[in-house]
């Protein structure tokens, strides 16, 4: 086996990244504009993971949570109840917090969330003998946007420091554009969605890494308003979901990271997703015993549907990325579904 020379490189773009475990080469800069694809986005890879109903199920199925997942959830309900017409599905669409609260109080069966459940909350419920199953059901690609006149071409990110540094509350564009006189003293004006939204949670994570962000973020009620605000303000930097469309009035600024960086704080089991990929979740509280998780037949069938080709097509239709085969297998294992091979 020939040993190739190691080179320093960093990977640009929102589909890049391969995580190396041992003996990783030093990173080197990749020219901006290059896009690397590791993750297979194609649905073709998933066609053989068809939804195979085991039983005809019936009864109430209550979904509640983030309106980011509203459209996909409606498609899920439509597809699932076409096969199980005796299922009475309800959807309450608002916020991840609302879904999580309803799940804990028993007002819904599955919470739809655009940010992960806090580890402390999972631990608390586990101590009460309840098992929280947080399944990734699709991926939302988040992108940073800047004013079109901004000469920035990429922003370096690390898991420990985010893009601003672990204790930073903002700063100037000079941190990345020190040689650009017009920009070096210009403050970075941050724009994002409203507090409590999943996108906002991810923005703060990307800004400071694990530290709490203490700076100011101008809040907006919709993606369009974030885009308009950034297009209108020279020093602006915003974070939006790519699934909502971006338009021509702002520029997308990709993140870069060195190849030996841990890529995501909250890894999706079986995945190598990058920090600008936001997992979307279906969360349930399931009884368990020595034999494993004990899903009701209805909920088990629904989870099987979400993690099938049909369920992933429903995500794609609203602009999200599907899971890869490996991610689906990993989620099935997380759900305690038997892996018979």
């Amino acid at each position, binding site marked *: 086996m020939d040993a190739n020379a190691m080179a320093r490189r960093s990977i640009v773009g929102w589909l890049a990244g*391969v995580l190396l475990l041992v003996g990783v*080469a030093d990173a080197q800069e990749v020219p901006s504009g290059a896009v690397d694809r590791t993750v297979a986005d194609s649905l073709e890879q998933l066609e053989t993971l068809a939804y195979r109903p085991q039983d005809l199920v019936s009864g109430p199925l209550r979904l509640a949570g983030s309106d980011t997942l509203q459209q996909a959830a409606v498609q899920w309900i439509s597809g699932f109840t076409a096969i199980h017409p005796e299922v009475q599905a309800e959807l309450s669409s608002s916020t991840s917090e609302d879904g999580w609260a309803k799940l804990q109080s028993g007002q819904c069966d599955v919470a739809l969330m655009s940010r992960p459940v806090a580890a402390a909350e999972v631990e608390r419920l586990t101590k009460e003998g309840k098992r929280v199953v947080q399944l990734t059901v699709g991926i939302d690609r988040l992108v940073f946007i800047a004013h079109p006149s901004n000469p920035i071409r990429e922003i370096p990110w690390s898991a420990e420091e985010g893009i601003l540094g672990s204790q930073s509350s903002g700063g100037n564009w000079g941190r990345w554009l020190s040689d650009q006189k017009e920009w070096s003293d210009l403050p970075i004006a941050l724009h994002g969605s409203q507090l409590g939204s999943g996108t906002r949670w991810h923005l703060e994570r990307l800004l400071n890494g694990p530290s709490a962000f203490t700076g100011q973020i101008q809040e907006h009620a*919709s993606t369009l308003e974030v885009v308009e605000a950034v297009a209108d303000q020279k020093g602006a930097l915003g974070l939006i979901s790519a699934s909502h469309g971006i338009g021509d009035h702002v520029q997308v600024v990709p993140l870069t990271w060195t190849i030996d960086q841990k890529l995501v704080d909250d890894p999706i089991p*079986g995945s190598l997703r990058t920090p600008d990929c936001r997992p979307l979740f279906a969360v349930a509280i399931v009884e368990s015993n020595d034999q494993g998780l004990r899903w009701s037949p209805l909920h088990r069938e629904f989870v099987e549907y979400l993690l099938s080709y049909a369920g992933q097509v429903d995500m794609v*239709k609203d602009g999200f990325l*599907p899971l890869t085969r490996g*991610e689906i*297998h990993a989620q099935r294992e997380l759900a305690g579904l038997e892996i018979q091979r």
Partner: protein
Amino acid sequence: MICRRVIFVVLGMVSVSVNLSGQEERFREDSIPADAPSGRYMPPPSHAPGVYRLGIQARNTNTGVEIAAVTPGSVAQRSGLEVGDTVINVAGYQVGMVGGRLYDIGDELARRVQGDGRVELLVRNRRDGRLVNVPVQFLGAEVAAISGRLIAQSPVRYSASATISIRLLDVTQPQWQGVVVHQMDLPNPGQLPRPYRLELPPLNPNHRYALDAYLEERGQILLQTPQAIPVAGNVQNASIDLVMTGRPNPGPGIPGGLQPRDQIQQWILGYLRRPPRPLEIEGWLADLQRGKSLASVQAGILSSSELFERNRRSRDLYCADVHQLLYGQPPTLQQMNDLKLRYDRSLGVRLRFVEDLLKQPR
């Protein structure tokens, strides 16, 4: 950009090769070419996943696939595999969790089992911890497949861009119309009649299945089997000819005579004001193949989160925009009130709102 390959050794036995352009290839240690081109990552299995069943309950770990249970009489038992053994690789390709990514043993078997049913597994023996090569032989009788001929009863012209799809349907319940449990696509099928062979995944012996086929081009179905043909649940090497005829009820024509793919593209361009993303068209066409109507696709695009976001997540702006997109003009005051009522009646579920609008226009 120079592509470099970084190779490192896991367990001293298997190499994982990572192409730094972002694509990963996993090669046997003795087969890594000095300067292999960066190819497509992980091609789909050459056989239907699940066709080659070892007969184990698997648990994926960072060091391979741990065997949690062995089915009596299975290939795994015949090969000497036991509970607690760990399969490290299949024909040199590591399985389990590798570098944070999961490589499913079923998928790997579908790729690596040779034509004569043989494959070699590297296994860590649970008794002494030693690594052993375990030859596995799948017998022909253990691979269920249906073969036959695809026949066109009606003459129809199609180009190389046409595709024939053969579908295995679960018809156990009368409500289960179009529950596709396995599908094989034959792009550029050439002249008919032609042979086919559909390898089957494990089937539930308590369920009933049926087979159908259709030929489509750009989303338009040109030929299809008039009815799905029942197959036995425990079929082994059955032979079934699939005779396709022209669509008996082609349905109302699409305005302008557009093919479904083109119509979907036009809707995305017109409603979302941008070109379609590749996965989008795929997703909507998959819906049509599952039996959904073009109207449901239209409703889905009009109710997308993207369109709602573009209207600042405002009910009123969104309703007015949908009206404009459908009818080419803004709504009158009375029409606007009607739209708001409909929207509120659908509890803010946009898909239901648009479906209602398409069924009962102004």
